[in-house]
């Protein structure tokens, strides 16, 4: 796989060994032959609302498994597999071929077609093995969990109904075939004779059901209705791409990467409870749901391109804003949501995900997004409508976020057992560490959230003065922000290292690991301008910059591991924030270096940047190495491409105008972004290499 040769128009979602299709809250991950077989690899299966509804879905012909010849991933919700029975050595003699054409639209719809290429009739036993463990998504890949509910099977003439119940919690999978089958508890068998040069086909419908059992028979959708739904999804995708600005550029793979990113962002939208909009979800397979922080960052990244995601995110997070104290869920009045799930462990309060508030960054970022949204769209109505919610979020910073009473934003270890210890984006255990590997005690005040809090107050002040008619509140917020900035620059700065501490402890200890969080500080504007250059030097120095991007933790730190989740891998989203931060402080060339590295890495992933990739030095590996369990597609990785384009083109708003101050790295050549819609109407942005300024 090389950077030059991937097809520009591949629309679906396909990684090296797996094929995923999704739509809304339903997704299916299978092997490349279309089978779901957790014994071979996990996570696979059909999932809906964080529960696995199919954990086995295997087609055999006369006992032989199918081997893929090719896979067309037609759309993000649709894939077609071309297969032959048996092992690859039999290719030359294949007299049968198989086509599986599946889509996710209101459950799973799969057409199984078998073609007989010989001059003789073929008598075949076609078997579909199907099962569901109704596993909780969060339990997959962990030691086997004993399910507390009961399984039921109902075998019909054309259908198999698999059910799971625990008290009032019900999940059911209904599998139906249009062709007659011999149905048993483990699947269905078709004994067929296919005439010479003829074919046989059946349509399999899998409905996922979460309602309580009733007298009504559960049925899958009718075919004409499904076709209509499918066309609807297709048209919606075309409109989505049509609304986004068009990219033209000399750097060949970037147009394809951009298009792929737009499609992945479309795929990862889910219906919102609010206003009929579409909400950006985090990523497959682990997080096909709302994560406050990620939905906010995706919204920020996509604002200049598709501002509708930001509007839905703001309205939805406002609706879910905390209003009470709930220690298990880390809920406090004014706090912004971290995560939502609908799984069994959620329902029975074994996990806090019914509404989990275990992050301290989403709340200030919510205010940042509200202000930034207005700057791009001019949608004053929403800013006024969410005044109370924004004020409550700002109030939370002081009332509940400042646990040490010293003006910083702190977090304790979450109280629900088993949750990630850190309530900032680098959630994992060893991510917040001293250079020598020690872990600080709790509570912790990581540096980047202080930057977000500063930014939220500055932006809150603008909103209060301009739209809420409350200049007194604006003055107070600004005063607090300036005091925070001054305090932060004194308390977090490590003069001998020339960077800011990663975090602080309540005894005043500075957690001194060198990490990518420095870039977020630039992004938020909390950094003293005299110190920006030192941070940029660190970020692009050999310890943090791998050549493919900025590592989460610098090489040489005790906990550094190039394949460690938040302790050495490169995160495209992180890099998009860092690059925009460099740009904010005037380091345009350096921002371009980061953007170019990520654009180049994108080409090696067929245009689909995963959540994270390995932090090996570029000179060591000539291509970016995949991180084993990274989510892909991942919303804020796709969004990173858009954000980095914004950075190199230097897109900013100024009143009702779009300002373009492009600084395109020479290797990228010319970049043009056409049809950027916003409060200015429609505008184009053009960036030539070595151009320092061009306005449109």
């Amino acid at each position, binding site marked *: 796989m090389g950077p030059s040769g991937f097809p520009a128009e591949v629309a679906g979602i396909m990684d090296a060994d797996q094929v995923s299709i999704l739509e809304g809250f339903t997704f299916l991950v299978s092997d490349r032959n279309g089978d779901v077989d957790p014994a071979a690899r996990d996570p696979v299966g059909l999932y809906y609302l964080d529960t696995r509804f199919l954990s086995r879905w295997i087609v055999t012909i006369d006992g032989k498994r199918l081997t893929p010849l090719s896979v067309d991933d037609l759309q993000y919700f649709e894939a077609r597999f071309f297969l032959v029975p048996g092992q690859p050595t039999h290719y030359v003699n294949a007299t049968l071929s198989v086509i599986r054409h599946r889509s996710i639209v209101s459950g799973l719809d799969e057409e199984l077609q078998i073609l007989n290429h010989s001059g003789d009739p073929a008598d075949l036993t076609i078997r579909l093995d199907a099962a569901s463990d109704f596993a909780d998504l969060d339990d997959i890949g962990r030691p086997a969990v004993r399910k507390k509910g009961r399984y039921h099977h109902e075998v019909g003439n054309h259908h198999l109904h698999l059910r799971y119940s625990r008290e009032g919690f019900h999940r059911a999978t209904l599998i139906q075939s249009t062709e007659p089958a011999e149905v048993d508890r483990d699947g269905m068998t078709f004994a067929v004779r296919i005439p010479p040069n003829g074919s046989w086909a059946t349509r399999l419908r899998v409905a996922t059901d979460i309602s309580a059992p009733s007298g009504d028979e559960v049925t899958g959708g009718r075919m004409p209705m499904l076709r209509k739904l499918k066309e609807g999804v297709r048209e919606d995708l075309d409109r989505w791409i049509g609304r986004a600005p068009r990219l033209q550029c000399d750097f060949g793979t970037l147009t394809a990467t951009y298009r792929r990113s737009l499609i992945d962002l479309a795929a990862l939208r889910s219906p919102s409870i609010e206003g009929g909009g579409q909400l950006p979800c985090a990523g497959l397979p682990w997080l096909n749901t709302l994560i406050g922080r990620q939905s906010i960052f995706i919204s920020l990244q996509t604002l200049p391109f598709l501002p509708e995601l930001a509007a839905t995110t703001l309205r939805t997070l406002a609706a879910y804003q905390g209003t009470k104290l709930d220690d298990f869920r880390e809920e406090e009045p004014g706090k912004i949501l971290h995560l939502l799930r609908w799984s069994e462990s959620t329902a029975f309060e074994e996990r806090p995900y019914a509404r989990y508030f275990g992050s301290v960054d989403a709340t200030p970022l919510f205010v940042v997004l509200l202000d930034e949204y207005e700057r791009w769209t001019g949608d004053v109505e929403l800013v006024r409508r969410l005044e109370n919610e924004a004020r409550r979020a700002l109030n939370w910073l002081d009332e*509940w976020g400042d646990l040490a009473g*010293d003006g910083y934003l702190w977090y304790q270890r979450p109280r629900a057992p088993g949750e990630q210890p850190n309530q900032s984006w680098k959630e994992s255990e060893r991510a917040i560490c001293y250079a020598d590997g020690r872990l600080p005690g709790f509570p912790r005040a990581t540096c980047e959230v202080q930057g977000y809090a500063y930014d939220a107050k500055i932006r809150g002040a603008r909103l209060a003065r301009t739209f809420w008619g409350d200049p007194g509140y604006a003055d107070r917020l600004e005063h607090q922000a300036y005091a925070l900035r001054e305090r932060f620059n004194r308390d977090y700065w490590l003069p001998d290292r020339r960077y800011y501490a990663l975090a602080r402890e309540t005894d005043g200890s500075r957690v001194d690991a060198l990490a990518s969080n420095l870039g977020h500080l630039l992004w938020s504007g909390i950094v003293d301008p005299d110190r920006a250059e030192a941070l940029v030097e660190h970020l692009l120095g050999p310890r943090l910059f791998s050549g493919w991007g900025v590592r989460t933790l610098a090489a040489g730190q005790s906990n550094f591991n190039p394949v460690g989740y938040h302790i050495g891998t490169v995160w495209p989203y992180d890099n998009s924030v860092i690059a925009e931060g460099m740009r904010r402080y005037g380091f345009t060339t350096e921002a371009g270096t980061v953007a170019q590295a990520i654009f180049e890495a994108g080409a090696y992933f067929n245009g689909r940047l995963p959540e994270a990739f390995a932090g090996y030095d570029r000179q060591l590996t000539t291509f970016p190495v995949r991180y084993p369990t990274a989510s892909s597609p991942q919303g804020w990785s796709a969004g990173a491409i858009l954000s980095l384009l914004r950075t190199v083109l230097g897109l900013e708003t100024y009143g009702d105008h779009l300002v373009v101050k492009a600084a395109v790295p020479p290797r990228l050549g010319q970049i043009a972004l056409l049809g950027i819609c916003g409060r200015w109407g429609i505008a184009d942005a053009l960036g030539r290499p070595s151009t320092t300024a061009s306005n449109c």
Partner: protein
Amino acid sequence: MTDRTAEYFAGPARRRMHLLPSGFAATIRLDLRRPDRMDRWYLTLGEDEFSFRRDGEREADLVIAADGEVFDRLVAGEDPTTAALRNEITYRGPPLIMIYFERLLPGPPDSHGPERVPGRGGGDHGR
């Protein structure tokens, strides 16, 4: 036997009215199954309006149904979202109205927020 749900909506729930979004108005019907009867309540919410009454049958924006005993636990701080996931309460109508309705319910009585620790860093804020 006292009806804890009725008591809650007659008193404490009003004090959470300010948590509803500005301009929010809705009529919510509660169908509560009691051992010997079905109680039907109408909760009317609006700008400066809060009423919880049994009479005045009318069209509701949201209908919530549950055992009265389940609802009595919700007004004492049990979580409504997980109760809905377990189908102990069911509702018909826009989920958004349900989310706003849940704001009127209290949090768990034993929750006090994160533990505060006096900071000793930070100059005039205590270095």
